[in-house]
């Protein structure tokens, strides 16, 4: 019995070793592939809420049946980059103030032909826009508006002014603009310009409100600090 078991044991050892070698080689081949797949899956899982919303939000369609009008978009002036200049762009614009505001703001975000004259960061997205009965337009932007804009008084003020000027030129129904970042009120755009209040739009056209605290300031771009109750109401509205 003894001589017969020795070769059998040796054979088993041989096959076991061979199997182990193949297993190691197989693992070495498969492991990187698995790792790649896991990394890809993890990256998909880590996709931010904002990215998800961005995918869900359909770009505002330009309806070709809408009348084509010459919209005025305000980007940086090519003569003096510390100022804004209007550019006439022919667009089919809706008569509905909400849709119209979305259309002109999206065109503003898309930027001019000369990308050096843009006022808003290219990766910023208008997440939503609605209008309150008192004529206050609420524009909710993605975080990129605050994180990608060059920080500074001049750059931030030009960004806000380009929005208020563009809305004023194209959406006469709006009286004020409130800017939110990802549904939230923020203290400043990127450390300088105040976003806690509303900005006057069409300041000269509207009737004077009953509450003097909400009187639009004389110039477009000036901040109107609303009374606390209005601010809270705005925040509550955006959290729905």
């Amino acid at each position, binding site marked *: 019995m003894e001589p017969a078991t020795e070769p059998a044991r040796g054979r088993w050892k041989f096959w076991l070793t061979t199997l182990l070698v193949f297993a190691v080689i197989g693992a070495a081949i498969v492991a990187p592939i698995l790792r790649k797949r896991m990394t890809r899956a993890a990256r998909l899982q880590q996709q931010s809420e904002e990215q998800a919303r961005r995918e869900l939000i359909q770009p505002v369609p330009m309806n070709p049946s809408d009348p084509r009008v010459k919209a005025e978009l305000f980007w940086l002036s090519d003569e003096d980059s510390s100022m804004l200049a209007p550019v006439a762009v022919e667009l089919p614009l809706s008569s509905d103030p909400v849709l119209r505001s979305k259309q002109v703001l999206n065109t503003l975000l898309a930027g001019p032909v000369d990308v050096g004259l843009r006022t808003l960061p290219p990766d910023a997205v208008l997440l939503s826009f609605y209008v309150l009965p008192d004529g206050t337009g609420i524009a909710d932007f993605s975080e990129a508006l605050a994180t990608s804009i060059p920080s*500074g*008084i001049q*750059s931030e003020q030009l960004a806000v002014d380009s929005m208020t000027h563009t809305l004023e030129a194209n959406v006469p129904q709006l009286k004020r603009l409130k800017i939110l970042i990802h549904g939230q009120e923020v203290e*400043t755009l990127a450390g300088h310009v105040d976003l806690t209040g509303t900005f006057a739009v069409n300041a000269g056209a509207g009737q004077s409100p009953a509450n003097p605290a909400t009187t639009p*300031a004389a110039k477009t*771009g000036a901040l109107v600090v609303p009374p606390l109750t209005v601010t809270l109401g705005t925040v509550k509205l955006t959290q729905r």
Partner: protein
Amino acid sequence: MLLDVGNSRRFRFLGLGEGLLVVGAAVMAFALETPSQTQQTPGASTLPPASAATAGQSGPQASAGSAPGSQTPPSGLNIVVLDPAHGGTDSGARGTGGIQESEITLEFAAQVRRALEQQGFQVVQTRQGNDNPSFDDRSAIANAQRGAVFISLHIASTGIPGTARVYVNSDLPPVKTTNGFIPWDLAQARFLGLSRKLGDLVQGMLTRQFKGSPDTAQTATIRQLRTTAAPAIAVEVSSVVVNNRADLDHMAPAVADAIARGVAAFKPLYAMATTSGALP
């Protein structure tokens, strides 16, 4: 710690929220003009450094030129509150070469401070190191002073390199005072006229040094200025995108000199506003 609060009774604020209640309580204590114990509150942390110096304390923000033991506040404009913007985790504007706005503003502030002290002003800084007081804390330092202007220092991301722009706050709604209280959120409203005069004077001095800068001060909705109850401006130097940091460093002495000359030229206008009762 005992504090002489005689210098700090001019402004009273109608607060919204607990932070403002703290400020209101502190101001009411000031109105009594009696030495009081400091409280461990954010409001107390922003009590006027000049007062601390008067009481013999040498805090980090103690200003130059205060007379120990003096009980009579000097009339007119005597104090400049310098605000090196940003700091701490907020670096502000950042250039591709690693230039950070928060560092440069602090270095500029040191030079501006020296130039102002040479003109005879006391200088109080809103920060001395790499920390980041809130907007309200910075305003509170200015709002606790009597006879002060507020100057916030910034370095831009944009603009023609080698230029400097002065900003004053955009128009604010008219303010109705209630029982003599000024709403904290609109503290700047009643100072806008004086802020524009100060801004134009400083801008004029800067434009002499830096060609291509505007002739007059610009307006912008600057969060820091809105809650400041004093003539207040922001000076923004272009820019962090310079290739060589030395380009910015070379600007600092001229910026400091222009600001000091501008404030000195503003001093008589401030005195006139004080005597005519135009100041709240």
